[in-house]
């Protein structure tokens, strides 16, 4: 058989194709293995942390905050978690309908969240029916000017800020308990972020003035680094122009936030100042000692969290083992350098933090504690 020039060319081409395919396969295998190994570690760690929670034979009515449609993330988190903990859950979408709905189905308790926009006559009318009401303040201490007058309209008050417990007692509330927020595994969990969502360092959040001042000092240390900042008001930065390409002024859904956290090697967490002037109603000047919900959300996504210290932090995570902390821009920059250079150490802290988070800090666990406080 005569081999034609064209056939020879075809065969050369197909050999070249096979070579390029093999090269791609090798590279892909290596990356896939790396990502798969990490997700295998994370998913198994999550499994190991799972502990079943009791289901209580009570009927809870949850009044949605009505901040979003159909559910704001926090409504989804609370309703989704409550559903696993009680034999009956009724969700009311519009707060105005809560009294009539409560009269119709007679729940054991009506739970409100946040409550800034709930007129006090709503809990009053429910209590007149002889039905217990509870509220969980989730933005303390930033709006205590307003919440002080609302709290007394509820039978049970829960606040995420340990420092606010005495405050509510002082304004006349009988049953007040500290109940921190948590994270919702339906939103925040380890995920394999797509390549274009990966980076070394990320900060998600608005440019409150305390944060802007801090980043003004921090950013010069991170000039060559792969960093992203996502949130509003960052044009306040002194060197905004220099860093504009790394800044995205937008809001993200929890799902997208989770992928951004998961795609970053290091996530910076910086609490608001209790006296931040941007958007604040805290004339009582109550300090803040409890970690923000973001602390739990970042840890749940299996990224290394570098957080500023709130007094109570050690009650939730062991610093240096389950989380890392910083007290100054210099310390943060040094720890970023360290943990980017020491990947094994970084992953060790991340997995410890992930385990602790999944075991102790879910909304389901918090709500279980709430139900325990309400019903024993």
């Amino acid at each position, binding site marked *: 058989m005569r081999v034609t020039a064209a056939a020879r060319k075809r065969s050369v081409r197909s050999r070249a*194709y096979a070579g390029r395919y093999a090269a791609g396969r090798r590279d892909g295998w290596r990356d896939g293995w790396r990502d798969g190994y990490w997700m*295998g570690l994370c998913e198994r760690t999550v499994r190991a942390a799972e502990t079943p929670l009791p289901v209580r034979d009570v009927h809870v009515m949850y009044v949605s905050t009505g901040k979003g449609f159909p559910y704001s993330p926090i409504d989804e988190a609370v309703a989704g978690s409550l559903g696993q903990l009680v034999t009956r859950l009724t969700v009311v979408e519009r707060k105005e309908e809560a009294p009539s709905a409560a009269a119709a189905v007679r729940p054991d308790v009506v739970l409100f969240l946040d409550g800034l926009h709930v007129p006090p006559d709503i809990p009053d009318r429910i209590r007149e029916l002889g039905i217990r009401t509870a509220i969980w303040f989730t933005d303390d201490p930033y709006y205590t000017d307003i919440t002080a007058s609302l709290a007394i309209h509820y039978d049970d008050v829960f606040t995420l800020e340990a420092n606010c417990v005495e405050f509510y007692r002082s304004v006349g509330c009988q049953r007040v308990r500290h109940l921190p927020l948590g994270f919702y595994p339906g939103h925040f969990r380890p995920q394999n972020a797509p390549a274009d969502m990966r980076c070394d360092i990320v900060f998600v959040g608005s440019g409150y003035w305390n944060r802007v001042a801090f980043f003004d000092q921090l950013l010069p240390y991170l000039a060559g680094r792969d960093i992203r900042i996502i949130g509003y008001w960052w044009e306040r930065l002194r060197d905004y122009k220099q860093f504009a390409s790394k800044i995205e002024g937008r809001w993200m859904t929890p799902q997208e936030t989770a992928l951004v956290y998961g795609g970053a090697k290091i996530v910076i967490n910086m609490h608001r100042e209790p006296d931040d002037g941007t958007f604040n109603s805290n004339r009582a000047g109550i300090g803040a000692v409890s970690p923000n919900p973001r602390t739990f959300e970042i840890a749940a996504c299996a990224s290394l969290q570098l957080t500023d210290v709130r007094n109570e932090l050690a009650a939730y995570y062991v610093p240096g083992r389950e989380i890392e902390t910083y007290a100054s821009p210099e310390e943060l920059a040094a720890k970023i350098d360290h943990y980017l250079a020491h990947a094994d150490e970084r992953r060790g802290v991340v997995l410890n933090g992930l385990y602790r988070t999944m075991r102790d800090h879910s909304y389901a666990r918090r709500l279980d504690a709430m139900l325990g406080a309400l019903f024993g």
Partner: protein
Amino acid sequence: MPRARTVRSSSYAAGRRDGWREGWSIGWREGAAAAAAAVFPPAVPERLPVRVLYVPQGFEAIDDGMIGALQLHAAELHVADPTRMAEMAALIRPDLVLVLNGLHVFPEDHLEQVGRIREMGIRTAIWFADDPYVTGQTVAIAPHYDAVVTHERSTVELYRSLGCAEVHHLAFAADVERFRPVTPPAACRCDVCFIGQAFWNRVETFDAIAEELADLKVFIAGGLWERLKNYKLLKKAIRPGWLPVDESVLHYNGAKIVINLHRTAAPGSDNANASGLPGLSVNPRTFEIAACGAFQLTDRREDLESYYRPGLELETFGSPAELAAKIRHYLRHEEERRRIAVRGLARTLREHTYTVRVGSLLRLLGYGG
């Protein structure tokens, strides 16, 4: 030449996609297995008030596991060579002399030594590891011991009928210090792996699926595989002779599927099963494969479900055709495969370590307090 560039980049991209998927799946198993092993730190058992003299068989995978576990459980542990067990017993005066298997390397005066130990008032126990395949020999040994333990349930009645007063059934386990999840070197990676001697029943099965295996990356290690009719077809895959245990750990870890096929208990076929009793219980390898976090495809022994849930913690086959079909299925269904493998590991770490098993053994022998 934009067109050529497209072809070039698309062939690379296609390779990348396929490679990524396979790498992900394999990496996931290794990561999940590593985490599973890390979150099951070996339990520290309560020490039992018994001083033990252990006499190993020379099966390193079992002996090392036993010795490690006895060190945790027993108040005191000594290890004696089979040739000097009576002498050591006289010196140490233990509460119990525990012998593994008592075959092969054991000296001619093995049974006289046991007699002398018992005359000293020391209790003796033997744990048989090769039943029912060697019952031709074990029936002569068992009556010389105070207590007989066998890993094969079917032989319990046999020893009782010989007049043995105390007979127990207890499965072996995995030495999880040795058999554990690791990331193997690339050379140890394959689709299907089998490690073991080519006993005739194994030869028949592998001959029946040889064509199926010929297209896959296969690793077979062990002696006598030239018995295969399809030897030529599988020759490339066969590594003749005994494979060191630590290498088998790497190959279990590198295989997408590890086959476990018990040897036949049919009398006379590569064995000394004079009793003709069936094999109802599982081999130590069942636990060892699972301890690596490997996906195991095993033939069905009656006792299997007491240890692992088929379809969840490992998979089973009842015929060469079913074996071939399940190999095909599980090579395609990667997620199913890797989840089963990791569940099998978790079960092993919970229930089938030597630490757990030796605790059961000492309790069976009455040292539970």
